[in-house]
């Protein structure tokens, strides 16, 4: 979509963020909204500064980040392997692709209470939940990527005496990669959201737990600080990942 990237779109987005902050500042200045629901911008900015300069926030950030990375690593490895093996035959692809695609439409969040039962309220339950959710986009895009490899390239490479590994390295991977990287990016964002959501529902520590706790203790400045922190970080991460994805797809 041409209108979604590029200078014009970025300017619109930056202008929008500026307007949001302006309106936020305006309504809190004039006391149009109760501070419980929307604390002043300045207060939130000071709270973020305080959270990070005292080092209080880093433990939560470190834990959540580690949980996300572990969940994502599991999702990627399982998704790539499943996607690769399913596409080894057209029959297997026809059997498993709709199955995996349909499972992905079930809200996996339903199974989170079971993961808490199995793995406790520590990071384990969040890792399992994030990994399960993140598995689907990787597997589905890997299947899509490998099944669009043109047969004649495979025949040509084989007839020219390519080894199985050579085939994998020089034919399968290059043609599948552009589709797979999209799955990898989506999976990361899903892992991130799942881990944060899981932490809000049931956890002992982490960013999600801090947001939930701040809401429970009616401490809106702290709650908004965490929300703003997550929104900013994920927006930047998303930009970076989209750039990487674009590079890979261009090649």
């Amino acid at each position, binding site marked *: 979509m041409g209108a*979604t990237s590029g200078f014009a779109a970025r300017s619109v987005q930056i202008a929008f963020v500026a307007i949001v902050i302006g309106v936020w500042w305006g309504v809190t200045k004039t006391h149009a909204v109760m501070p419980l629901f929307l604390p002043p911008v300045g207060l939130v900015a000071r709270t973020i500064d305080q959270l990070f300069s005292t080092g209080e926030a880093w433990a939560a950030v470190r834990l959540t980040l580690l949980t996300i990375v572990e969940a994502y690593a599991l999702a990627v490895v399982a998704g790539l392997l499943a996607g690769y093996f399913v596409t080894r035959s057209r029959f297997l692809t026809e059997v*498993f692709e709709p199955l995996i695609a349909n499972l992905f439409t079930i*809200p996996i969040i339903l199974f989170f209470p079971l993961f808490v039962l199995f793995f406790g309220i520590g990071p384990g339950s969040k890792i399992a939940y994030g990994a399960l959710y993140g598995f689907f986009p990787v597997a589905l895009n890997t299947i899509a990527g490998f*099944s669009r490899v043109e047969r*004649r390239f495979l025949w040509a490479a084989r007839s020219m005496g390519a080894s199985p590994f050579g085939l994998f390295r020089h034919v399968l991977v290059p043609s599948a990669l552009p589709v797979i990287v999209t799955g990898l990016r989506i999976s990361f*964002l899903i892992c991130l959201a799942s881990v944060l959501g899981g932490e809000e529902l049931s956890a002992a520590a982490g960013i999600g737990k801090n947001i*939930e706790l701040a809401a429970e203790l009616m401490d809106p400045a702290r709650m908004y600080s965490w929300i703003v922190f997550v929104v900013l970080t994920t*927006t930047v991460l998303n930009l970076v990942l989209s750039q990487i994805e674009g590079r890979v797809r261009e090649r």
Partner: protein
Amino acid sequence: MSAEQAAAPRRHGGLLGHDALVRLTRAGVVLLLFAIWQVYGAFFADKDFVSPPSAVAVALFTHIFSDGAVMRAVGLTLVEVALAFTASMIVGVGLGVLIGWNTGARRMALPVVLLLYAIPQVVMLPLVILAFGIGPVAKIFFGFSHGVFPVIINVVAGMRNVNPLLLAGARSMGASRLEIARHVMFPHMVPSLFAGLRLAMTVTLIGVILAELYVSMAGIGYYTQVFAQTFDPAPLFALIAVLAAIAIVLNELVRLAERRVTRWRRVGM
């Protein structure tokens, strides 16, 4: 799908057609998974944590269907999903048409929609509950805020993909804006609209259930907590199974509607 795949001849394997064989194998895989779960749950698993499907089926009747309070919580969740989805559809199509109608509006609004869509909304769940309370309103809102974005984005994309020749043709034959919308835009938007609606149903379910689970004082969230604290997980498995079944049915309904509306496409070709 590559051109070769589409051009590949239909293989007929003996008595069964190829498609039937694929479906049978798929059903076999699902059955096998259930069988493994049954054997593992009945003989190997710790009974405090894993219940086999047979025990879950029993719990379905002893703890879920027979308990009016649980059924009311499930029913309320269903109503919340229905309302959230309907709102997503109406608002999403409305905004999508407004944004997609002309290039200027699209350039201004679409980047904002995409910016908002990329935010992991789950971080705002405690805020939504704080603002709307622990009742159905918060859950409907959270479902709606998940569902509306895919609809907007797909409607805008669908309007862009209408062949300009068809628009020019309709216009030159004196069609009004409304007629163009009804007879040219709408039929060509349908595939993209339904792609959006399918995604919207999936994420609406996620939003509503997330909010339901977050509120542990009432509804589904309360019962998952209660069932998790006894040392018999079968009712918890059963409750989750019921909700998963509802999710599957709702997703299928959207697809069914899609098939009905797009029938003319298949008949014509």
